[in-house]
Structure formats: C-alpha cells, structure tokens
C-alpha cells in the first residue's frame, strides 16, 4: 500500500506539473494574443460615417443630396447562432441566403455582417421592435446619396458604390468601414478623397449578448469637403433635352479660364441605381446595351473631326504665310490629283472663294489647296499645337488621345509612304485624323481665346495660368470673323446655330462613316455630326464642341444642339442683369459678320 501511495504522489506531482505548464503556455506564451481577443470581445468599434461633401454647380445649385440610409447588421459570434427562419422573415429575405451569409467560413468574429441595406422607415421600426429576439442585431445609419438630376450629367457627377472586394486592402480605403460607399465614377470618384471626409468612431463596451453597456470613446466624423464645379447645370439639362434619344457628347469650356461649363455624354444612366448596390441584372443590361451608356463619349470616343478641323488648317496657313487671305481659289466641285478626284461636298462647286468664303461655305477644294501649300509636317505641327493627338488631362476618366497623322506615323503603321492625297484629306479633318469631343472643345476654346491655352478644369475658379500660343492678331480676327459668318451669313453651313440672344460663331463638321460609301443605309451608316462653336463672337465667354453619333450632317443636327446649350448659358444671364446689352452685341455681331443677313 505504501508503494501505491508513493506512485499516487508521483501522479499528483506530474498532473499538477502538466497543468502548470499548460497555464504557462496560455498565460505567458500566448497571453498577449488572448488579451487582444478579450478586448475584441469587449469592445465594438462602430464607424460613424462622415456626411459626404456636396457637389455644386457654378451657380451653387446642389447636384447631389445626402439622405439617411438604414441598414441592418448582425455580430453573430456574441449571439450564438440566431433563429435563421425568424430572422429571414423579419428582414423579408431568403432564409438560406441569411444563413449562408452569417455562417460563411473565414469571417473574422465580432465584425458586423451587413444583412440588408436601404431599409425604409417601416422596416426600421419593425426591426427595432423585434431586435431583442436576435442578440447582436442592430440598425446602422449610413449616409446615402441621391442624384436628383437622374441621367443629366451622370457621367460627370458619377456615382457611389461599395469598395470593390479586391480593393479592401488598398491603403487608400484604410479607416473606412467595410461597407463604406466610395466614389466609383465621375467627380464622385475623382474628388473622392475630398468629398469623403473622415469617418468618426464610436467604441462601445458590449456584453456577450451584444447589449451595449457604455460608451468608451467617440470621435465625431469630419464632414467631407464640398466640391464647387465650374459646370452650369442649366446647359447640361438643355443638352440632355435637345439630344433626344441620339447618342453623342457636348463639352463647353470657358475660353478665358479653361473651366468646363458643360460635359455631357449620352445616352446616360441613372446613378441612383448604383448607390444601393446595383443588381446584377441592371448591371448586365447597362453593359449589354448597344448604345453603350457607360461610355463617356466626351472623352472616350474619337472620330474624324471633319470640317471642324478646317479651323486648324486655316490658322496654320495664315500663320505660316502660305496664302493671301483675300486671294481666291476656284472650286469646281473637286480636285484631281494623280488620277484620283478629291471631291468637294458641294457637287457643283463653290466657284472662286477667298479664305472667309471658304470657311463660311466649308469649301473642301480651298482647303486641299491650303494643305498642299502647307505640307503635312506643318499641318501636323499646328494640329499638335491645338492639342490634337494628346489627352487634355481633365482626369475625369481615362481619355482617348485622338490622332494627327504624319509621314513618320504612316510609314511606321502602314509601311507605305505619305502621299499628297493624304495631306488633302487630312487638311479637311478626314482620313486618319481623329479627335475626342473634349479635344475639339479645347481647340475651339484656344482659338476663341486668341491663343491662351488654358487646360480644361472642372473646379470653379481653380485654373492655372495659361501657356500662350503666339498668333498674329490678324489671324485671330480673320478666323473669328469667318466663324461668325458660318452661323450668321447667308451661305453659312452653321445657320442653325444662330441665336437672337448672343452672337455665335462656329464651324460644322461631318465625319464619314465607312460603309456609307458602299450604298448601305440605316442609322448605323449615317455620318457623325460635329459642330464647334463659341460665343459671343466679339468677346468669347464660351467655347464648345458638339458631337452626334450617326447624327447625319453637322449643320443640321449638331448646330441646333449647340444653340440650345449656348442659349441655356447666356439666356439666364441676359434676363438677370444685362438685358440692355443685347442690341449692342447684335450690332457688334453684324459688324463682324460683314453685314450679310
């Protein structure tokens, strides 16, 4: 028996030793880790969303609204597993979906799981009433975003969405609640950091049932900064209206600052669809839509600028001194070179025309001659000087570059030499020349400003000093007068842009669609219509480019849209402050237009 008791003592010592070792392991070796776990047990950190900054137009009209957005979340670990059936019924969700979401593997415990968002007040009331049946269930109030303008300026304003799953580790989104809405498109994305503000934080001590016991710490959120855009929403609305169901884009700039006054791309989309998490079916229909509503045509579509490019050719010829502006070139409806006839759009020909008449009537033959005298090298130099072939750097979305061809370019790309015929069609903005609507608006703006090269900017009053393109005053005067004539003179191609409110200058353009030449018809074979414009012609405050996809002729389709946009901008100004100025301006306009009416 003594031996048995000795063995018993040994057993006791061994067991106590093992327990002491295990205690050491838990408390000393792993103590820090468990201490952290016990803190996480205790505290629930809730982010208080910061009210997002408001986006205003240049007249302080708010383009977005913050609205409370209620959602319901659960912290499942502390609650043990809830009654999924009852919970699903309360939230009007599918039981399997709720169970799957809560029991999903790899969830870190104590992090709230959002079950449903965008609750209405009745749902909030019902959940609050039954909350105590589901430990860990709580209502969160977020700040949602509403876009009262709907489709108007949607590409510009953009929309909010959840942080994409792959992006949650991005340091950019650190300190944001997991379900935070961030800017995903347009200005909402571009100025997200400013608009976002800094979320506050509320640390609450909770018990195992998820009941909140006391507030440990609370940091108030810092409200996001407002963004004051240079946009005039009145123009955007008018543009949206006058485009009808046509696709295209309009960009309007202030030539004296580079401020973007309007930037519309159509068809558009309703940003409100995105703010509560877009349904896959909605996303699919947006993506599958043949009219590509998610394409920002103002920056992302490039087409031959057509005759609008003649402005560049004319300036190049005047600056390089290759023409006498009053010397006439006779247009017989075409020009034959190397056995090939380069036609003028006017089959019967314009007859003898000088520079002014060639621009007003958009005579192709005259500009072939200018191209021949300039050569592609000089033409390329001047097109590049006016920004063709280079992004404007607006930053709203990834831009297309456009293209101004050159002999080197052709040799590299097509392995064949440059022909004079290439110069002909380049000088009237056809062939390989392509530009985006914003590039054409920028070109128009730089011409209107007389060579002050302001870069486009979206923020009101925030622009950099311009680079200057030294142009002869005579060049500017002559080109402006001719563009005025396009709209205001008898044979002008842009008469449809004529406005009784403000004198408008402009130039039409038509980009030929491949396939039309082969006799096919139908909307998809209609030409693309262009119109570039500026106003008032004596002291330009606005310059713009309108592009209508498959619109047909620039003068017929694009010019009326430009007129609507110009009147939307100048109309309210006249009514508000300077009604007496109108006749004076008209007088000035007719003076410049050479009195032909």
């Amino acid at each position: 028996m003594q031996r048995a008791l000795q063995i018993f003592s040994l057993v006791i010592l061994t067991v106590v030793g093992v327990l002491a070792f295990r205690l050491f392991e838990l408390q000393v070796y792993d103590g820090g880790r468990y201490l952290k776990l016990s803190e996480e047990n205790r505290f629930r950190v809730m982010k208080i969303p910061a009210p997002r900054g408001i986006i205003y137009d240049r007249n302080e009209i708010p383009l977005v609204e913050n609205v409370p957005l209620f959602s319901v979340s659960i912290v499942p670990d502390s609650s043990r597993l809830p009654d999924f059936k009852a919970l699903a019924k309360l939230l009007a969700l599918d039981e399997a979906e709720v169970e799957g979401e809560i029991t999903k593997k790899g969830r870190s415990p104590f992090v709230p799981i959002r079950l449903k968002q965008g609750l209405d007040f009745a749902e909030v009331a019902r959940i609050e009433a039954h909350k105590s049946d589901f430990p860990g269930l709580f209502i969160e109030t977020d700040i949602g975003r509403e876009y009262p303008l709907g489709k108007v300026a949607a590409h510009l304003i953009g929309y909010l969405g959840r942080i994409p799953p792959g992006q949650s580790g991005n340091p950019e989104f650190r300190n944001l609640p997991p379900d935070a809405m961030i800017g995903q498109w347009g200005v909402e994305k571009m100025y997200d950091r400013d608009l976002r503000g800094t979320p506050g934080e509320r640390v609450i001590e909770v018990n195992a049932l998820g009941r909140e016991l006391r507030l440990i710490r609370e940091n108030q959120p810092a409200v996001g900064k407002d963004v004051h855009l240079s946009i005039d929403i009145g123009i955007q609305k008018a543009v949206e209206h006058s485009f009808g169901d046509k696709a295209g884009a309009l960009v309007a700039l202030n030539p004296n600052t580079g401020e973007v006054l309007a930037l519309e791309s159509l068809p558009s989309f309703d940003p409100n669809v995105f703010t509560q998490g877009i349904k896959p079916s909605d996303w699919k229909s947006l993506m599958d839509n043949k009219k590509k509503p998610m394409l920002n045509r103002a920056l992302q579509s490039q087409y031959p600028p057509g005759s609008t490019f003649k402005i560049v050719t004319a300036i190049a010829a005047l600056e390089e001194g290759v023409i006498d502006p009053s010397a006439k070139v006779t247009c017989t409806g075409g020009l034959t070179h190397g056995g090939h006839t380069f036609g003028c759009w006017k089959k019967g020909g314009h007859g003898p025309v000088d520079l002014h008449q060639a621009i007003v009537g958009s005579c192709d033959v005259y500009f072939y001659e200018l191209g021949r005298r300039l050569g592609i090298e000089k033409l390329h130099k001047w097109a590049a000087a006016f920004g063709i072939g280079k992004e404007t750097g607006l930053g709203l979305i990834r831009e297309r570059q456009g293209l101004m061809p050159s002999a080197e370019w052709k040799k590299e790309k097509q392995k064949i030499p440059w022909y004079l015929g290439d110069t002909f069609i380049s000088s009237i903005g056809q062939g390989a020349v392509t530009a985006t609507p914003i590039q054409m608006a920028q070109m128009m703006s730089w011409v209107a400003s007389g060579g002050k090269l302001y870069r486009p900017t979206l923020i009101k009053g925030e622009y950099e000093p311009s680079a200057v393109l030294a142009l002869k005053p005579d060049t500017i005067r002559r080109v402006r007068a001719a563009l005025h004539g396009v709209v205001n003179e008898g044979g002008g191609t842009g008469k449809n842009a004529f406005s009784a409110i403000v004198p408008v200058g402009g130039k039409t353009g038509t980009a030929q669609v491949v396939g039309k030449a082969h006799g096919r018809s139908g909307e998809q074979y209609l030409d693309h219509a262009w119109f570039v414009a500026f106003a008032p012609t004596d002291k330009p405050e606005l310059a713009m480019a309108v592009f209508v996809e498959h619109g047909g002729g620039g003068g017929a389709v694009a010019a009326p849209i430009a007129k609507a946009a110009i009147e939307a901008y100048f109309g309210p100004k006249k009514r508000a402050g300077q009604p007496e100025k109108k006749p004076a301006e008209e007088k000035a306009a007719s003076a410049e237009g050479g009195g032909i009416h």
Partner: protein
Amino acid sequence: MAIDRRLLKNFDWITFGAVVLLAIIGILTIASATRPAIEGAGRPDFYFKQIIWLAFSVLALLLVVAVDYIWLQRFAYIIYGLGLVLLLLVLVAGKSSLGAQRWITIGPLSFQPSEFFRLAFLAGFCSYLAGSQGRLTWPGVIGFAVVPLALIIKQPDLGTAILLLSLFVVLCLAKGLNRKLIALLVVLSLLAAPFFGHIFWEGLKEYQKNRLVAFLDPDVDPAGIGYQINQSKITIGSGAFFGKGYQQGTQGPLRFLPEKHTDFIFAVFAEEWGFAGSLVLISLYLVLFLRGVDTALKAKDEYGRLVATGITAMFFIYFSVNISMTLGMMPVVGVPLPFVSYGGTALLSNFIAAGILIGIRTRRFELFYPQIW
C-alpha cells in the same frame, strides 16, 4: 461530549488552513465574477450565500473531526444504503436543470444528493475493501460499481460517474487487490469500451454530445458548441503573467464566459491574478493533496488509510478534471473546482470530507478504539 485535548494538540492545521484559504479565495472570486457589468447595478448575493455556507461548513468540519471515524466504518453500509436511496429519489422526484435531473428539494432546501453520495460511497466501499481478503468479488463489483454508476448515468451526471469509476479503480489499486483481477478488469473494460461507448454516447443528452464534439475541435463553431472552451481559454490567457487585477476581469461580468462562478471559476481567478496567482492557487491544492497522501501513509488503521486515500483522490480528480477542462485540455464535463466554485452542497460535503481527513490524521496515534459513551 468532551473534546479530547489530544484532538487540539494533533489537529491538522495545514489541511484545515489550506481548505479555508481556498474557500476564502473562492468567495472573493465569486464576488468578482458576479459583479454587474454596469456600474451602480446591484451585485447578486452569490458571494454572501457562499459565506453563510462556509460558516456552516467550518462548523460541520469541526464536528466531524470531533467524532471518531470508527463510527463511519461501523455505520458504513447503512450510510451507503441511504446514499443509494437518495439517488433513486432523485430519479423519481428530482428537479431538472439544464436537461439533467440532479436536485432534490426538501422544504426550502435544494441539494444535490450526488454530492453526498460520493462520501457514502467512500465510507461503504472502503469498509468493504478493508474487510475483504485482498480479493474483489462479483457482489462487490455489482454493489459498488455497476449499481451506483447505472443510477448516476441515468441522471445523467457525467462528472460524478467519472469520479466514482476513478475512485473505484484507485482504491482497488491502493488496496493492492490481486493483480490478475485488476488486469482482467482493465482488459474487459477495454474490450467493452466500444460497446459501452456506443451505449454511453446514445445515452448522452444533446448538450453533452456537443461538449465532446466541441472539445475535439473548438474552432468548428466558435459561436456555438465550442463557445465555452474558447471563451475559457481567452479568459485565462488574457490574464497574462500578473493578471488584470482583482475585480478588473472583463470576461465574467460581461457574460462572455458562461458558468463563470461555478465550473469556470478558475478562469475568472486566472484572468484577474495571472500566471503568478494561478501558481499560488495550484500550490495550495498541491499542499492539500500531498498532505492527504501523507495522512494516508500515517493512518493508524487500514480503513483510515483507504478513506484518506479516497478523499485525497476525490479532491485531486475534481481539481484536475476542472482545471484541465477550463484550460481546454478536456471536454466540458461540469465538474466544480472543490472549495472554490459556488455551490453550498458541494462546499459542505467537501468540508465534511476534509473533516474526515483531518480526523484520520489527528487520531493517528490512538491505538485503541475509544470508549463508547
């Protein structure tokens, strides 16, 4: 009743001091574990009830020490028989809690008969062993193992069943019963294990099955069945070396730790006093156990030796099962930590057991049976 002066002179102050100290630590920890999470709310009176029970328990201990354990041996079978009757009563008229039928209510008193049955079993079985000629007979196996285990598993009370089975084996080994028989028993139980295991598993209530599953893999479902084990480990581990300080623990009052003042009291203690405090507590138990073994070695007769061994083994088994369970080394079987966990019946019966132990040591020099007065 005259108290013999030798009782005072030879009184085992070390065992007495250890158990009283443990009980006081228990009361302090219960008070801390049950303190409200929100300041200003009332504190439940668990700790106060335990103080009252401690007072009665100390009295009971002294009373037991005063009475010679020879009486325990003389009435051993009667006491054991009464114990069996109580177990039967629980099955017939018991109150259930958490799916187990363990409580009997007499007037205002509720108590768990299995707490006292352990003592009755020790008294009876030790008497049987002391009288046996180094042989274990079938009536002995049936009467002291099969019948009580069947009654207890029926309740079901897994903790007590494990304890009784262990005590049975320990006492047989201590008695030095014929090796062949013990070997046979071990082989038989190994062979029968899968069979009984199946019956056992089927007989388990749902929560007991869950506890076993949770032990095997606590991460299976941290918010569900593995919850107790995980939270217990977090509670103990977060104490680190020096602990969070008395009444500074958070796991208990915030209700993350279930059964914080009963089965998981050690976790609360370890959270507040850290590794250093836990070592002191474990050392107190070590003193109690080694002193108990020493008492068995020095006991004046075989019955005293067997009873002292049985009581020490009982404390030791409860202690090691409870601590290993809170440390996540064993399934949760619902065994309280002796002297420390909240529970009046258990405290009283443990103090009576300690009293018997002290009595055996105190009377180790008495060569003759005392007079019957």
